[in-house]
């Protein structure tokens, strides 16, 4: 059986923003992407990486400076009407009309689609049935976001675009959005979402593209990406700093058993290892031999966050995330 053609193909996508009196900004510098039909695909990266620019070009809301875009085997500019009928979009931040009720908003968006889903079904799907007669300005942040996703689902889209669907939401609301996306995927439909939450991409996405500085630096399933950096576990530890025993260099630990990668961090060290049960005894032995004292020791599984750090040498800093918090 021949595989279904990809839902999205784009090649050599470039976008340059020109503002008068300022140097031009290259938001995308040659981005290639293929999203298979039926998969949930995540664009992962820090703020300003080019995620939103990419998704808005794919949504036909932004013109690329150059590059080729094919969505559902069609092109923006030639097949806009039929593309719009077949895709659903939730923008990064839309404030729907405050004075309309949930149901009125859904009826409005439903009216634009020739063949769409029934607002009642969608209300159930996003658990807003009880709220259907409430005005939007009385909804919580999570409910508003679910309504935004509901508006994207009203056309029964083959392809769903969600730009940061859970940013700023509490954990419960995030899980509710994830359930909606999972159900969409279970019906064999495609989702492209952007996120800067590593755990979200890990739990939700079949495949992830790590975007940084306007291009994709790694693509694969979350587990592939994690395997790619070598180990499956991370050991983090700190040492007491007292003279005359100056703190060792990170390389000092690289030859311990099963260590794939060793980094010095601000307040300690991080080792990526294959077998923690071999590495930890050896580490403790070496520290006591050199009269170095442990202040802390933790182990955990490798996450996409570690993948990002190992690919870019940078962390998705907490400040960046704090900017987006409610």
């Amino acid at each position, binding site marked *: 059986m021949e595989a279904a053609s990809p839902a999205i193909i784009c090649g050599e996508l470039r976008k340059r923003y020109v503002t008068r009196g300022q140097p031009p900004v290259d938001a995308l510098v040659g981005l290639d992407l293929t999203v298979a039909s039926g998969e949930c695909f995540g664009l992962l990266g820090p703020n300003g990486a080019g995620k939103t620019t990419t998704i808005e070009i794919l949504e036909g*809301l932004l013109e690329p400076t150059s590059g080729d875009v094919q969505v559902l085997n069609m092109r923006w500019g030639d097949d806009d009407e039929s593309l719009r009928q077949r895709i659903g979009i939730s923008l990064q931040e839309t*404030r729907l*009309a405050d*004075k*309309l009720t949930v149901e009125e908003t859904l009826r409005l968006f439903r009216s*634009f689609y020739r063949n769409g889903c029934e607002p009642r079904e969608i209300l159930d799907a996003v658990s807003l049935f009880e709220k259907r007669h409430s005005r939007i300005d009385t909804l919580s942040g999570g409910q508003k976001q679910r309504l935004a996703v509901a*508006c994207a689902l009203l056309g029964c889209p083959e392809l769903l675009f969600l730009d940061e669907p859970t940013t700023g939401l509490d954990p419960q609301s995030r899980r509710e959005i994830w359930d909606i996306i999972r159900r969409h995927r279970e019906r064999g439909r495609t989702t492209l979402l952007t996120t800067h939450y590593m755990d979200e991409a890990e739990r939700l996405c079949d495949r992830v593209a790590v975007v940084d500085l306007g291009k994709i630096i790694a693509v694969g399933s979350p587990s592939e990406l994690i395997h790619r950096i070598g180990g499956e576990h991370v050991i983090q530890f700190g040492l007491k700093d007292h003279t005359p025993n100056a703190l060792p260099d990170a390389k000092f630990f690289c030859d311990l058993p099963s260590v794939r990668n060793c980094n010095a961090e601000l307040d300690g060290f991080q080792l990526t290892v294959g077998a923690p049960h071999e590495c930890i005894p050896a580490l403790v032995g070496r520290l006591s031999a050199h009269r170095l004292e442990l202040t802390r020791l933790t182990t955990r599984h490798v996450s996409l966050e570690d993948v990002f750090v190992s690919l870019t040498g940078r962390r998705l800093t907490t400040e960046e995330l704090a900017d987006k918090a409610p």
Partner: protein
Amino acid sequence: MKRYSPNRELFLCRMRMFYREPDAVFWTYGFPVLLTIGLGVAFRTKPPDKVQVAIQDATALGDIQRTLQGDQAFQTFVGTRPQCESWLRKGEADIAVLYADGVEYRSDPTRPEAAIARLKVDEAIQRAAGRTDAVATKDVQVTAPGARYVDFLIPGLLGMNLMGGGLWGIGFVTVDMRIRKLLKRLVATPMHKRDFFLSLIGSRMVFTVPEVLLLLVTGRLLFNVAIEGNALNIAVVAGIGALSFAGLGLFLSSRARKIETISGLMNAVMLPMWIFSGIFFSSKRFPDLLQPFIQALPLTQLNNALRAVITDGASLMSQWMPLSILAAYGLVAFVLALRWFRWT
């Protein structure tokens, strides 16, 4: 009927967004009526003011005092000479009648009412003393319907509201939707842009109906304002005016991305028309040099046409000129707005 018609849903949503916003409803309907009532009361027609006369309490002025006190045209104060001079100085009396060697009228020629007061007082005193007219004359006094200030005011206020409603009602709402990224969200659906603009303009036209009716009914019931023209003619002129300003509102809002920008643009456009377009007083009072500019303002044309139709009962045909100018404004603005409209 289709289950989901985009035109119907867009129109209904726009209506709901309006009438569920108490502020918008007040400024569109409540405020103009209050303004009409306030101005109508302030400038209501009153009987002519009485002449305020100070009379010295001299025995020689006894007959004059009785004559003036018995005449409805005068309000008299009797007092000592210094008292009379003081009343005059403070403006409490328009004229003082004093007695020294003979009867003396004292008044301040720089006060406009002084000359009339002097004439009236002298006329009453001389007539009482037996003077007769050398030429027989007859007075015919006429207050023409539609000539009062409130009759002038109501069509002007109507024009002002059609302007404000069109500019704010379309412009402000559009920019607000752009800021909310609601326009971007809508254009990300298969919605036809034409349907969107139609619903915006269509709902504005519907809001205009009660606006016009409320003002005219208030004017008629409270101030007995003369409405000579027939309803259809008034509706056509108001309709063309509303459409024209709706087009201008859409044009002003076609690019703006901030409320400050659109507010500034609106005020810049409306301010000259508030002053020059003959809302509160006739635009003919401005110098001839300014007239070409004043006549080119759409509100001047709308107010002219509204006054002609409402007060004079003029025909639509006679108003082809102002109506064409208004329609041209609306059309050009609308076409440019569609060309420049920014959805994101």
